[in-house]
């Protein structure tokens, strides 16, 4: 190392800043290049990811529009248990409303919020429900997630599939233990109660605002 006579603080500062500057420019450039190169792939896989989720609640065959692009921004909606803005996806078939896919939150799970993705057909039947995020007790309350459900053939969450909302009274929207029509694993009824309640509220909300939801101007293809 060169043991030159000590430079002044400002000289050193300038020298260091310049060296760092050069390195930063080079590496940021490199990084930005990489970003631009992978960008399309990332966007594609993000979209695919979303579609995969949607596919679980709403079969592809039921609509023909590009669902991810026919969206509506929803402000925070207490009826859905949401305290932040979300997006509603609108499925159409031949231009006609087919189904709504939207998020809902059950605030009163055993250990906090349970986030759901709900698909409600235009005819008032539930196409499907999926849990997207939860913190329920592993091994006890987590059977709401089909992957964790011991009953692989008919996971608990699939009970919602095809429910005709119109034919149900509010009393039915309960677990069997409370006199409703939904099963629940013995020893863990807090979680299903919360989910059932949330789905019920979400479906009611969507049904009541169906027209507005389908028609309001959002991003249309």
């Amino acid at each position, binding site marked *: 190392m060169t043991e030159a006579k*000590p*430079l*002044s*603080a*400002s000289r*050193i*500062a*300038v*020298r*260091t*800043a*310049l*060296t*760092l*500057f050069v*390195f*930063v*420019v080079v590496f*940021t*450039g490199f*990084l*930005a*290049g990489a970003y*631009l190169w992978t960008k399309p792939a990332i966007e594609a896989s993000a979209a695919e990811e979303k579609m995969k989720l949607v596919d679980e609640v709403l079969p592809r065959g039921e609509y023909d529009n590009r669902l991810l692009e026919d969206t509506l921004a929803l402000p925070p909606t207490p009826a859905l248990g949401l305290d932040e803005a979300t997006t509603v996806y609108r499925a159409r078939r031949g231009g006609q409303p087919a189904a709504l896919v939207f998020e809902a939150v059950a605030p009163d799970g055993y250990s906090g919020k349970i986030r759901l993705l709900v698909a409600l057909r235009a005819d008032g039947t539930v196409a499907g429900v999926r849990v997207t995020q939860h913190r329920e007790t592993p091994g006890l309350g987590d059977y709401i997630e089909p992957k964790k459900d011991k009953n692989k053939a008919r996971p608990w969450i699939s009970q919602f599939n095809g429910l005709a909302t119109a034919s149900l009274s509010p009393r039915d929207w309960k677990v069997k233990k409370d006199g409703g029509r939904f099963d629940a694993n013995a020893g863990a009824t807090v979680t299903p109660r919360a989910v059932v309640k949330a789905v019920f509220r979400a479906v009611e909300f969507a049904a009541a605002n169906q027209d507005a939801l389908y028609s309001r101007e959002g991003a249309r293809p």
Partner: protein
Amino acid sequence: MELLVAIAIMALGAIVLGAALGYASVKFRVEGDPLIDKIDSVLPQTQCGQCGYPGCHPYAEAIAKGDAEINLCPPGGMEGVQKLADLLGREVKPLEAEEKPPQVAIIDENTCIGCTLCIQACPVDAIVGAAKQMHTIVAPLCTGCELCIPPCPVECITMEPIGESLDNWKWKYPVVAILPAEKKAA
């Protein structure tokens, strides 16, 4: 365009940080290394050079610089290694040489020729005597480093283990009565 914005923003940050760092590195420079003194205080100060350095302080410097292992000082023993490991957060390593019991040098008074060679060699002035006179080692001052042995032309210096007396007797570690049920691991 995006690329240029990215580079511009990062470059701005780089200049600010670089300037701050460069400035601080000059303004806050510290001299000396307090670590060396800490290490030195752990070393036994026998000054025997068995570590391969001319005395304890140079060895401490070498450790602080990261040039030397912490297990080179036989007089410090495993305990010293342990202390250094604690101080520096390094792993404990077994000592390079085996530990010796404490000892003092004794000069055979009949053989000594009074050459003063051992006086020069003793790092801690533990030998008294004048040229052509018989030399004696002041036992309490002797650190047992053995440095005086090689220079003696007539081999009159020997090392003797320090015996137990009422002054240095120590209570032993209490015998632990719990013994393995089965034969002790041989």
